């Protein structure tokens, strides 16, 4: 037998206790929506998981009213210590139900269970634990002696890390004393709805968190609602622009976390085997559907061939397939439309003269799949070097000097992430200093921690999530006496 054809080791979906239909979570309970219900499917099999309500403008208004009431009557009056208790309770419940949440996430999103189990869900719990600690320490957030909350936060999140993005949004908002109306992505509402059950379990006061499911129109109704004080959005740059436009001239505070085209810079003195691992983790983690993915590999010319050879050998050991199998490294693409975009841009890459390579792998016939792909001979002018592909597609470019590496890395309208691989500490500091990216990883990639701020430069958005800076997005300094705000 072939040992490397590991026998199937599937995580059982039987642990899930899903309903056939899910309503909107408004004012502490599930209610039917007035929009047209939609189904959420497993991208790995295209099989139906559940029917989900769609919130129309009226539902969104009901949710915002509930959030406002909860803000005025309960949440803004509660002591920070008490808010913290709820957040700690939520964090513990997430840990208790971690396995279930991981399975649901992999089922709905298509990401490998090893990632939802070892990365997404533990980070969700970590985010709530971290911000629970902030709830009674707002005066140390660096915004003056008695910072105040903003009010009702409208939050719209993407499908690539459904529950983790929910945690990034909800945890700091609640810690600061705001109430929330959150819209999960249309293709991945499942874990947000399970999270609503966790909120019921935690006995969170009604209306403090409301979850409205639906597509773009629901999100638009939410961010344009007149009675929200804060809008937080993570998603595409195009939608981010629309939101910036529609909130301009209002008193809504806005943070945006948008696209990226991260550069992973490998110098010739890099720890080569770990760099190869980091490149793989940078672009094939979550099928490359990561806004901060290291989608542009900038490798020093002298080691280009060696790195590419090692990379190809490593890619040949990646296991693509059933997201629920514990040995799967690369799962399914989230939706048909995303898959279409990957195919289109990859074809353009070939037409523009780049060399395309993928390891031999048998992709399942059902579902949405794209093999891990690398492009060599890529020029900076090629579209695959400029456009965000948001898939497991790596463009390999070269450089000769550190100055050239920095220039090429910064030569993008985006500025979310970058990576530096070198054995030389002084070079890490010198290069990181000149990179126009919100996050710069050194000798690692795609590492997240609740204490570390995350966010972009330029078209990657503004505002920070995580850390003390993440609290600033949900707080305002108290106006000094006599000054009317």
């Amino acid at each position, binding site marked *: *037998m*072939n*040992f*490397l*054809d*590991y*026998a*199937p*080791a599937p995580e059982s979906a039987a642990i899930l206790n899903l309903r056939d239909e899910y309503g909107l979570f408004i004012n502490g309970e599930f209610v039917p929506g007035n929009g047209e219900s939609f189904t959420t499917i497993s991208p790995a099999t295209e099989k139906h998981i559940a029917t989900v309500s769609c919130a129309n403008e009226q539902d969104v208004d009901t949710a915002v009213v509930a959030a406002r009431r909860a803000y005025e009557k309960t949440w803004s009056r509660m002591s920070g210590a008490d808010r913290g208790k709820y957040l700690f309770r939520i964090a513990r419940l997430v840990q208790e139900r971690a396995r279930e949440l991981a399975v649901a996430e992999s089922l709905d999103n298509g990401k490998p269970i*090893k990632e939802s189990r*070892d990365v997404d869900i533990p980070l969700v719990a970590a985010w709530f634990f971290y911000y629970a600690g902030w709830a009674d320490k707002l005066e140390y957030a660096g915004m003056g002696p008695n910072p105040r909350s903003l009010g009702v936060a409208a939050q719209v999140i993407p499908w690539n890390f459904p529950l983790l993005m929910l945690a990034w949004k909800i945890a700091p908002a609640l810690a600061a004393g705001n109430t929330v109306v959150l819209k999960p992505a249309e293709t991945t509402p499942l874990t947000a709805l399970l999270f609503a059950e966790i909120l019921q379990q935690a006995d969170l006061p009604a209306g403090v968190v409301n979850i409205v499911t639906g597509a773009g129109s629901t999100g638009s109704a939410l961010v344009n609602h007149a009675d929200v004080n804060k809008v937080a959005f993570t998603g595409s740059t195009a939608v981010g622009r629309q939101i910036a436009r529609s909130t301009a001239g209002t008193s809504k505070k806005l943070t945006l976390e948008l696209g990226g085209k991260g550069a992973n810079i490998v110098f010739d*003195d*890099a*720890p*080569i*085997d*770990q*760099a190869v*691992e*980091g490149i793989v983790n940078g672009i094939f983690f979550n099928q490359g559907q990561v806004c901060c993915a290291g989608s542009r590999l900038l490798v020093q010319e002298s080691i280009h061939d060696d790195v590419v050879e090692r990379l190809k050998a490593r890619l040949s*050991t990646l296991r693509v397939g059933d997201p629920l199998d*514990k*040995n799967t490294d690369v799962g399914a693409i989230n939706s048909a439309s995303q898959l279409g975009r990957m195919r289109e841009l990859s074809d353009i890459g070939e037409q523009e003269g780049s060399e395309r390579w993928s390891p031999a792998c048998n992709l399942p016939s059902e579902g949405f799949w794209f093999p891990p792909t690398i492009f060599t001979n890529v020029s900076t002018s090629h579209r695959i070097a400029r456009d965000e592909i948001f898939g497991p597609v790596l463009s390999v470019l070269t450089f000769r000097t550190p100055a050239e590496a920095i220039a090429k890395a910064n030569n993008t309208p985006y500025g979310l992430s970058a990576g530096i691989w070198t*054995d030389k500490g002084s070079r890490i500091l010198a290069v990181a200093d000149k990179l126009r990216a919100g996050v710069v990883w050194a*000798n*690692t990639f795609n590492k997240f921690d609740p204490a570390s701020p995350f966010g972009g430069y330029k078209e990657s958005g503004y505002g920070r999530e995580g850390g003390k800076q993440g609290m600033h997005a949900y707080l305002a300094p108290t106006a000094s006496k006599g000054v009317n705000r």
Partner: protein
Amino acid sequence: MTMETTRAGTTVAPASRALDVIGGDLTERSLRRYLEGIPGVDAVGLEARAAALGTRSIKTTSKAWALDTIIRLTDLTTLEGADTPGKVRSLVAKAMVPDPDDMSTPRVAAVCVYGDMVPHAVEALGSAHDDGAPGRINVAAVATAFPSGRASRSVKLSDTSDAVAAGADEIDMVIDRGAFLSGRYGQVFDEIVAVKEACKRPDGTYAHLKVILETGELNTYDNVRRASWLGILAGGDFIKTSTGKVTPAATLPVTLSMLEVVRDWHRLTGEKIGVKPAGGIRASKDAIKYLVTVAETVGEEWLQPDLFRFGASSLLNDVLLQRQKLTSGRYSGPAYVTID
């Protein structure tokens, strides 16, 4: 200063592999330059990769194959001051019939003993002693003033040749860690070359040479990688992590970094070098992580006794218990495997 310069210019033994790869006048200086030119290891990244490999879930048929493979790759070991001929005979009996209740259990690759116990092992093995046929068992002897390596060169060499003369098929030597850590790579190199020569039999063939790096004393992964290259360049057939007498002994990240060297050597020369983690691997679950690491780093073809071994004593019994569980569907207990 003068002494340094003189030493750097000193020529080292003209081992053929090193001549091919480093070329020219093989000196302490050229050897050092070569070893210091090897890319560094990032400890955090290496350990993360090893941990990730450790999360592979090996079930059902894969697990059954893995358990049998672990047995086939084991150097069943006894290295105690208190060893007796009787203990060695008992070990050999276990090596030949690991599980008397299940004769389908494969045999181990070798028994590993101190040099003076080689004649007893050879005698006890009788016709099961290796003649190259499958299912035969090798006798491995530790040599070169194992485990510390603190003896004169001549003592180490006669330790080796004695064991070979007594019938040892494999020699597990220790490198001079003191010399290595103080940067005297040439001295370590020369010693390995000399021990390799001492492995030569009258008929011109050689006993297999395993070079023990004693990674627990080398401290950094950069050192492990450098010592691995050194051991291979000097002619080792295997590189081995540890004596088992120093803590930490074999660890997954250390073994991974050695496998990466072996993979790179194969890419460079086409030649396949073996790897032997030894000491500290007691549970089947851990041993399976090593199999995964081997298969995903150098390839599945390394999972054969010529290229990969476990140096272990108590591991075998845990594998047998797991094997019984797979066959019968229930766990037995330590009373159902033999102690030796």
